[in-house]
């Protein structure tokens, strides 16, 4: 049945999907500072798009390590496409992917529902906030402003990297393409015996 580790097929599919999102991440940059209306943090509502590669790749391929690889690959794609943020996207990508991966690991890679991916989105949000804490002195913002900032980022992350990612993969399932990707399950074997 399932072999240990990722095969070339898994890696390649993950990376290809992630690079598509890497391009999205890149064009998301200008959008992000275009909707930044003088610090009222509406921009934080769309921040969640930068977590979506991890959750989508995990839902598609359903194997350990995919979420981290996808987020790192998407960040690399964004970086190589000439991101305005430069090298820092690699750090953000790594920690965001890592926390999403840990959430999936906590459920032992057995759950693929909207609650788990939303939780992974929350994990990525926490990761990004930790880096922001060191990099952006966000603790030095006035408290009401900081609350708005964090709140908006969590809400946006759950909507985009959680619920939207889930509905995206559901739509992809309808095309039948996901059957190529997922490891065979016990149900598949059982259905052969019927």
């Amino acid at each position, binding site marked *: 049945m399932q072999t240990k580790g990722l095969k070339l097929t898994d890696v390649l*599919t993950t990376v290809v999907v992630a690079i598509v999102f890497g391009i999205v991440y890149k064009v998301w*940059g200008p959008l992000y500072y275009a909707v930044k209306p003088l610090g009222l943090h509406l921009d934080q509502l769309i921040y969640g798009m930068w977590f979506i590669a991890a959750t989508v790749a995990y839902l598609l391929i359903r194997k350990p390590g995919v979420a981290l690889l996808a987020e790192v690959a998407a960040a690399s794609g964004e970086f190589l496409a*000439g991101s305005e*943020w430069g090298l820092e996207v690699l750090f953000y990508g790594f920690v965001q992917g890592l926390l999403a991966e840990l959430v999936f690991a906590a459920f032992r890679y057995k759950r693929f529902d909207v609650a788990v991916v939303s939780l992974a989105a929350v994990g990525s949000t926490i990761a990004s906030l930790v880096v922001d804490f060191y990099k*952006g*002195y966000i603790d*030095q913002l006035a408290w009401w402003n900081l609350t708005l*900032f964090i709140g908006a980022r969590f809400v946006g992350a759950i909507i985009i990297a959680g619920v939207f990612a889930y509905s995206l993969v559901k739509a*992809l399932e309808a095309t039948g393409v996901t059957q*190529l990707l997922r490891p065979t399950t016990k149900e598949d074997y059982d259905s052969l015996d019927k």
Partner: protein
Amino acid sequence: MRWSIEHKETWLHETNPTVKLLLFLPMFIVIVFVHNPNVLINWTIGFTALFMSFSGYRMKHMLLFFVPFFFIFISTSLSMILFGKGETTWFRFGLIHVTEESFYRGVHLGFRTLLFAIFGLMFALTTKPVFLFYSLMQQAKLKPKYAYSFLAAIRLLPIMLEEFQTVHQALKVRRAAKAKGFRGKLELIKRYAIPLLSQSIRRAQRIAVAMEAKGFTNERARTFYYELTLGKYDVYLFVVICMIVAMGYYVADAFPYVPIKDVR
């Protein structure tokens, strides 16, 4: 990605990509733990000078690359300037509260982002992705299955762009290329994403089968089309970075621009 833009090859292009990455990445951590704006301003000047002198690109192009940096400088510093904590009030209007402390902190953040951006640009413009991944396999012992997956994925980008245009035109003909509201926009993204992703996945599967057949999964000793080594230019880069870092500290101490040494 941008190697199609006309440029000269300088010694920065000759440095080993892995070494360059290993020199630039730790700078992120170093910069995050610098709280003196004077140091950051000096480093920004130093590394901009390095980039401008040795990237090999035309001044016209380099100035164009800097345009988005202007926006991120403003956008990162502005929230902190307008809403940051501080004691010495300069200006207050409703929720906006500009203080001396928050102003310098905001400017400091702006320079920090600028520095990351310059490092990123310097790396991206002087490194060919192909050499980066070959070098990561040879110097950093990255497993070939990861490196070749990245290389294959990068090669697929032009096909994806073409497909994107096809989908865009198809949607336009059906008057489905626009949508209103946040929900509508998400639906719109889906309309584009589903065909692009499903096609990419199918293509990735086919390529993976071909690559496996040709032995790209081979994890043991293998030969490479491009052999990348370390050279004198890697030492130059290391020395130049050390010099800029040290000079930045020295000048910040001897001739400070702003009277603040710690913005926290």
